[in-house]
């Protein structure tokens, strides 16, 4: 037994190192990119570091952050949701139309149901209809967008009461309330994913749905719940967006889904599910927002911006894949070293 203990101790060091490296390498790497970006932007325009600019960015990115939290859950469960841009628009459209007629309370209450309802539909199509989520949510994306046009009759809806738009400019200790709300969403998401039975099930379903099913987990229920959650974040984001802008048109948030998916992927969440850290998604969103800010400040032609963002997504995923390969090699190397030294240890 003593020999075994010693063997275990000798094995632990390289193995632990490998675990720590593969666990935090991604975080370090994305933080490094983030800091490099911030430094580059500051060099081009020192005004970047001003409190006004920073709080502006916070308010701007809040809706995207909120949706990214929900998207992380769906992607860890091994699915996608590209209908969320439309869900944000439909939520905001319904909220605006109802608020102007029946008041803010009715508008918010009704619109908060929109996202979860789309989520249930997405979840049922994916699980019961066995249709890949990319296709299923492509369908609902188009349908929800169309409904947004129907609800707004294609016009800009404005004239919201001050009580409603006041929220958009509100500050808490100088920080935009919408950003505080987004941070709250992430804290809840983090607790849900790492500290609740549901979170473990989400990871298990994404890692291997067969293992999850054989362990008595209802795979369909977990996936539907994940779609409802991302729908819920879409509805929150829709309201936040509406409050900030004070007006809405059906075309709002077009393409948001791809920016959000890109942010989640840059944050290191696996495209095939089972892996991911919701806190790193925040870094992913920051990277996307800062790149846009950087290109604006550096006066890079607007038409080139999507090109650059696309390129960065590919590089980020490539780096992630490389890092996983290195991590796996370190882990097997450590295991091999551990097993090969064990007889020698036992001789002593």
């Amino acid at each position, binding site marked *: 037994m003593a020999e*075994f203990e010693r063997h*275990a101790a000798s*094995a*632990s060091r390289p*193995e*632990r190192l490998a*675990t720590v490296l593969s666990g935090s390498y991604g975080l370090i790497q994305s933080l490094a990119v983030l800091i490099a970006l911030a430094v580059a932007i500051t060099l081009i325009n020192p005004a970047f570091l001003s409190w006004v600019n920073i709080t502006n960015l916070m308010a701007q990115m809040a809706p995207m952050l909120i949706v990214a939290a929900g998207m992380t859950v769906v992607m860890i469960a091994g699915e996608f949701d590209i209908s969320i841009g439309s869900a944000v628009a439909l939520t905001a459209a319904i909220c605006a139309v109802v608020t102007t007629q029946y008041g803010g309370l009715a508008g918010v209450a009704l619109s908060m149901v929109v996202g979860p309802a789309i989520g249930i539909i997405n979840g049922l199509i994916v699980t019961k209809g066995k249709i890949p989520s990319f296709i299923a949510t492509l369908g609902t994306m188009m349908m929800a967008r169309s409904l947004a046009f129907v609800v707004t009759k294609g016009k800009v809806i404005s004239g919201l009461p001050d009580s409603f738009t006041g929220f958009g400019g509100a500050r808490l200790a100088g920080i935009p309330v919408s950003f505080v709300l987004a941070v709250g969403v992430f804290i809840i998401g983090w*607790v849900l994913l790492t*500290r*609740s*039975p549901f979170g*473990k*099930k989400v*990871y*298990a379903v994404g*890692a*291997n749905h*067969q*293992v*999850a*099913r*054989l*362990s*008595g*987990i*209802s795979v369909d229920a977990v996936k539907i719940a994940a779609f409802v959650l991302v729908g819920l974040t879409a509805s929150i984001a829709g309201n936040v967006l509406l409050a900030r802008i004070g007006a809405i048109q059906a075309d709002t948030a077009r393409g948001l889904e791809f920016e959000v998916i890109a942010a989640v992927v840059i944050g290191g969440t696996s495209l095939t599910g*089972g*892996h991911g850290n919701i806190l790193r998604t925040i870094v992913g969103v920051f990277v996307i927002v800062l790149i846009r800010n950087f290109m604006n400040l550096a006066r890079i032609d607007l038409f080139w911006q999507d090109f650059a963002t696309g390129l960065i997504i590919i590089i980020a995923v490539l780096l992630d894949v490389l890092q996983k390969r290195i991590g796996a090699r370190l*882990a097997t190397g*450590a*295991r091999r070293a551990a*097993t090969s030294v064990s007889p020698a240890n036992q001789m002593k």
Partner: protein
Amino acid sequence: MSGVLLDCIQIAKGFPGVQALKGVDFSLRRGEVHGLVGANGAGKSTLAKIIAGYERPDAGRMLLNGEAVAFRSPADALRRRIVTVHQDINLIPTLSVADNIRLNNELVHRHWGLIRRKETHASITELLDRYELDVSPNTLVAELTYDERKMVQIIKAASHELDVLLLDEPTAALTQGEVEIVLKLIRSLAKEGIGIIFISHYLNEIFAVCDRTTVLLDGARVAEYQQHSTSANEIVTAMLGQELVSDMQRPAPFTAEGVEAPALSVRKLSVPGRLVDISFDLGAGEILGVTGLSGSGASDLARAIFGAGGTRQTGEFFVSGTKASLRSPLDSLQRGVALLTNDRLREGILPDFSIVDNVCLPRLNEYATGPLQLLDRPAMRESGDMVVRQMKVRAVSAMSAMKSLSGGNQQKVLLGKWLATTPQVMLLDEPTIGIDIGAKHEIRNTIARIASGGVGVILFTSELDELVQLCHRVIVLFRGTIVEIFAGAAIDKQSLLHRSTAGKD
């Protein structure tokens, strides 16, 4: 000798850690069907791979029509008219029968390089007629039944100019009636003068179709029989070698005294195409073995009981005397039925999860505490630690990732995971497959221990030693039906192997 087509002389082949072939002689005549049998790991497939050019021998010579040959690739062997039909059906379902047969061997127009459709159609029709397969050349393979696909696969092989046809388990997934059709096709091919090597576990088929049979054991040829002058028993004895069965320890006889109802009763369980009318009882504290060749339905039976086998099954289950639907894994776990699957990597572990998370996966809801119903992580940790301790798992800690463990230790964790659900019925599908001797031993001890604690255990395995050492009774399955149930001292390797390979007499 005249008529000798292929002559393998003292073929040897080693892989790291194992000498797969130790100087094997094997010959094949024109127009002959030569059976190749042996237990798992005896060297059948290595010999077949060498003949087909997939592997190169370390030593020995191969003569084809009296001329020395050395194949560097399967394409090499194909050029010398040696064609292999693999166990898996490798046809393209979305193409027609004719397209599949002519794939990469198309009849093309001399100048244009386009496919000559009329000639292709005519030649395929002629081919299908000759081998009496009643399908149209234009039928998509996806629309064919399983045996028709196997026929097409063999006919495709026969459409080449060939001397030697290598058939690897051609009947493995077929039903009895379908087997007859395929065997008939094999006989008619032999009549044309082709030499056929027939690898099979099914001794009755060996007797039905072969002229000669070579038996391999641990990489050596132990016997060669003329089919008309041997018996199934003789071949089974040769396959097992000289091993003494009586030396092995046996479990104490099982008595169901004092227990009112069986832990599990299965009544008339059928799964279309897999299992037919399976009924048996499992006592609390009993270890019941289930064995059979691959394709006999043992694995399907495990999944059908656990509710993981799809929705087309019929039959009834009773757990401790009361009816249970066992329609899904969740259902089964709630009724105290757990399954350790045979595919550790694909259906067992979550490699990136810790031991703790793997162990607690089926019981996550039990750990929800407090007003927010969050996970009680210290309690989960404790459960993981207990599994590590009780199952003697070699790991740095219970928080180690599953992927950092060896296969044997992963298997111990998985067994611990299911035992932590405190099952009344534990289904174990090949629990010691692909793990080292030490872990095997520990897992077998654990199986005996949990049974003596009153858990009913069904052990689905093809390892005869395991059945003899551990089981109170053994069910032998053959093509989806129970052929015999052995009990106590009647469980010996010879009879188990005989029943598994030959079915009913």
